[in-house]
C-alpha cells in the first residue's frame, strides 16, 4: 500500500486564530477518503496546504511523493481540485472555463468532456456570471473529472447540486475509484460519505479526532439493540458497556459499546430471543459523539441566536 497523502503535526495560524492544531492525515493510494467536520474545523485550510496555496507553520506534508509547497507545479499536473465555493470569470463561458482549467492542468479528454457536459446537464455557452451556484460547481467538477489525474481533491463538491446530480457525481467517484484514483472528499453530506468512502477522518478544531474505516469507527461507538425476550431481562443492567437500558414487559432496548457487543449478545441469547433488531451507529451518531458537547453548549445559550 502506497501513501498518496500524508500529513503529520500540521499547524496553521491566521493571526491569533489557530486553524490547524497538529493535524495528522493519511490517505492511501486508490482510496476514497472522507473528510468530515463542521464549518471552520479546518478542512479547507488542510486542502489548501495540500495544494501549496498556503504554507503550514509547522509539520510535515507529502503529496504523491512530493512536497506540496516546493513541488506545487509538477504535483498539480497529477491532481485536480474542486473548491467549495467556485468563482468563475464573469465574461468567460462555462465551456471556456472548463477548457482553460483542463489545459492549464495539462490537457483534457474531449469525449469525456462532452459526456460529462451531457450527464451533468450543463450549458457551456453561458457566461460565468449567469451561472447559479450549482452550475458553477458543475463547471469545476467537469473540468476536474475530464482530466486524467491520479488524485482528486474535492472540497464539498456537491454543496449546490440537486439530488439527481448527486447520483451522477457518486457514479463518477465510484468510476474513479475503480480506475485506481485517489479521492479526498471533504463533505457535510453523511449519506454521500457512507456510500462512497473507504476511510473517514473526522476533524475537529484543527485536529483529526477519529480516523479509520466506517466499520472501525462503528466499532468504537455503540450499537442499538431491540429485542423481544421470553424471560425478564433485568440482569442485563449489570453487564459492562450497556447503556440506556429500557424494559417494557418483554421488550427491551439498549445501546452497547462496540467492544462489549459479544458479551451482551451472549447474555441476551440466554433470555429466549423471539425477535431481534440491531442498528449500527449512523455517521450522524459518530459525528454527534465528537461534536455533541458543542451542540450542547450552543443549545444552552439560545439568547444569542434570536434577538
Amino acid at each position: 500500500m502506497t501513501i498518496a497523502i500524508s500529513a503529520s503535526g500540521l499547524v496553521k495560524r491566521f493571526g491569533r486564530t489557530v486553524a490547524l492544531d497538529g493535524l495528522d492525515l493519511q490517505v492511501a493510494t486508490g482510496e476514497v477518503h472522507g473528510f468530515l467536520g463542521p464549518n471552520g474545523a479546518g478542512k479547507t485550510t488542510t486542502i489548501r496546504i495540500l495544494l501549496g496555496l498556503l504554507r503550514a507553520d509547522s509539520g510535515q506534508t507529502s503529496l504523491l511523493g512530493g512536497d506540496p509547497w516546493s513541488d506545487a507545479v509538477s504535483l498539480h499536473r497529477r491532481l485536480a481540485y474542486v473548491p467549495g465555493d467556485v468563482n468563475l470569470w464573469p465574461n468567460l463561458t462555462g465551456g471556456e472555463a472548463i477548457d482553460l482549467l483542463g489545459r492549464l492542468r495539462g490537457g483534457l479528454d474531449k469525449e469525456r468532456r462532452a459526456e460529462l457536459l451531457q450527464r451533468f446537464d450543463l450549458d457551456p455557452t453561458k457566461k460565468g456570471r449567469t451561472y447559479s451556484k450549482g452550475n458553477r460547481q458543475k463547471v469545476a467538477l467537469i473540468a476536474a473529472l475530464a482530466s486524467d489525474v491520479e488524485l482528486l481533491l474535492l472540497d464539498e463538491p456537491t454543496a449546490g447540486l440537486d439530488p439527481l446530480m448527486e447520483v451522477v457525481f457518486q457514479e463518477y467517484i465510484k468510476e474513479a475509484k475503480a480506475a485506481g484514483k485517489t479521492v479526498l472528499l471533504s463533505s457535510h453530506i453523511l449519506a454521500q460519505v457512507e456510500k462512497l468512502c473507504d476511510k473517514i477522518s473526522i476533524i475537529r478544531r484543527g485536529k483529526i479526532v477519529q480516523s479509520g474505516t466506517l466499520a472501525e469507527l462503528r466499532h468504537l461507538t455503540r450499537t442499538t439493540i431491540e429485542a423481544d425476550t421470553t424471560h425478564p431481562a433485568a440482569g442485563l443492567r449489570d453487564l459492562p458497556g450497556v447503556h440506556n437500558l429500557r424494559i417494557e414487559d418483554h421488550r427491551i432496548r439498549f445501546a452497547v459499546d462496540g467492544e462489549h457487543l459479544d458479551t451482551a449478545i451472549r447474555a441476551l441469547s440466554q433470555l429466549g430471543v423471539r425477535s431481534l433488531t440491531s442498528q449500527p451507529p449512523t455517521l450522524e451518531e459518530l459525528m454527534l459523539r465528537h461534536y455533541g458537547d458543542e451542540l450542547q453548549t450552543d443549545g444552552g445559550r439560545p439568547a444569542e441566536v434570536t434577538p
Partner: protein
Amino acid sequence: MTTTATRAAAPTARTSGRGPLTGTGKLLRFNLRRDRIRIPVWVAALGLVQVSAPATYQGLYPTAADRMNQAAVIDGNPAMKAMTGPGHGLDNYTYGAMMANEYLGFMLIFVALMSVLIVVRHTRTEEETGRAELVRANVVGRHAHLTAALLTAATANVALGLLIAVGMGAAGIESIDWPGSLLFGAAYAVTGLLFAGVAAVTAQISPFSRSASGMAGALIGLAYALRAVGDMGDDTLSWLSPIGWAQATAVYVNNRWWPVLLALAVAAVLVAAAYRLRGHRDEGAGLRAERAGAATGSAWLGTPQGFAWRLHRSSVLWWAVAMFLFGTMYGSAVDVMEEYSDNEVVRQIIENIGGATITESWLSMIIGLLAIICSIFSVIAALRPRREETAGRAESVLSTGVSRIRWLASHVTISLAGGLLLLLVAGLGLGLSAAATSGEGRYVGDVLWATLAYAPALWLTAGLAVAVFGLLPRAIGLAWALLIWAVLMIYFGGLLDLPQWMLNLSPYMHIPRMPAEDFTAIPLAILMLLAAVLVAAGLAGFRRRDLTAT
C-alpha cells in the same frame, strides 16, 4: 419580463400602501453608515485642499504685481490654459479669480470621481454581488437603491459645497466675498451632482460595476479634455463640458449663476433617464440580454499568457482607442500655439527651456500628461492579480500546472507591454494630428519618440503595484502612491513652487522633455533598473506568501 414583474409587484405595493421608493430612507441611512469613513474623508480632503488654497496663494503672490505677472504667464501660454481654465479675470487677477481659474477645473475631476464611485458602489456593485437581491426581497421598492445612492452622493456633494462656501467666505480676503463663495460652493456641488447622474445612467447600461465606473470615468476625462482644448482656443468645445460650465460661472469675477442652473437641469435629465432605463431592465441585468458565448475555449486560452490577455483584452482595446483620441484632440491644438509665438512672456519661458519652439515645449508637456494617463492602465492591470486572488479565482488557476511566477508574470507582461502600446498609440495620435494641423511632418517621429521615452517611468509606476501585490497584499492601495504623487507634482509643482526634492520623487520628472529637451539615456536606465527591482521583489514576494482571500 418587466410588465410581468410590475404586475406581480402591484398587490404587494397596494397592501403595504407604498410604491417603488419604499425603503429609500432606510437604505440611505444604511449607505451613509457604510460610508461613514469614506465620504467624510473625501469631503474633508477636497474641501481642505480648496479652503487652504487662498492662504497658500497669499504667500506665493503677495502683491498685485506678482499676481499680474502670473496672469501674463497664463495668458501667454495656452498650455497653462489647457491645464487650468478659461482665464476669467486675468486683466485684474485677484486671489478670487486665481482660485476659480487655477483650482476649480482640476478639483472638479476629483469631485466627479467621488460622485461616480459613490453611485456605482451603491447601485451596480450591490446588484453584481447579489446583495441588492437580498435587500430587494424585503419591503424595498424597485427604485429604492438608485434613489438612495443618488441621495448619498447628493449628501456628500452638498456637504462639500457648504464646506467650501463657508470656508472660502470666512477666509476674509477682499476678492473672495460671500456671494462669490456661495456660487463657488454651488458650482462644486452641482457639478458633483451632474456626474452622480452620469454614473446613475452608466450603472444601468452594463451588468458590471467596473464597466459602469469605467464609462463614467471616461466621461470625466472627456469633460476635462474638451474644456482644455476649448480654453486654449475659442472656447466652443468648453461649452460641451460640465467642467467647462462650472468654470463659465466666472466666480469672484462676474459671478454668473446661470451655468450652475444649466448643470442642474442636465443633472435632472440624466437622473430621469437613469430611472427610465432602470424601469426597463431586470434586477442584475444590463440593458442588453446576455448573449450565449463559445462552448469551447480557443487554443491560446489554454496558456497562462493567452488567458491573461483574454482577461485584459477589452480593457486594452478601449484604452487604446481613448488614448488615440486624446492624442489626436490635443494634437489638433498646435495651430493655436503659433499665435502665441510673438508674446514676450512666452518667449521668456521658451528661453528657459532652451532653444525649443513654443509648439515643442507645449507638446512635451502634453506628452507628459498623456504618459501619466497611460500609467493608470498599467497600474489597474498590475492590480488585476489581486482582484483574481480576493475573488477566489486565482485559487482555481494556481491549483493547476501553472506556477505562481508564470501566472503573475503573464499579468505583469500585459501591464508593462500594454502600457507601452498605449504610449505608442497616444504618441501616434498626437504626432499625426500635430503634423497634419501644422503641416510639419517631423512631429510624427519626434512626438512618438518623446512619448515612448516615458515607458521607464510608466514601468516603475506599475512595478510598485507589482511589489505591493507580492509583498503587502493587504495594503494594496499603496500601489497608487507613485501615480498620485506624479499627478500632484505635475499639477501643483508649477503652481505652488514646490521644493525640487518633492518633484524628484516623481519618476515622470526624470524623463527628458522631448522634443523641447534633448534625449538623455541615463535617467531612463536608472528608472528601468528600479522598475526591474520592484517587479522582481513582487514576484519573489508572491512566491513566498500565502494566497489570501481578504
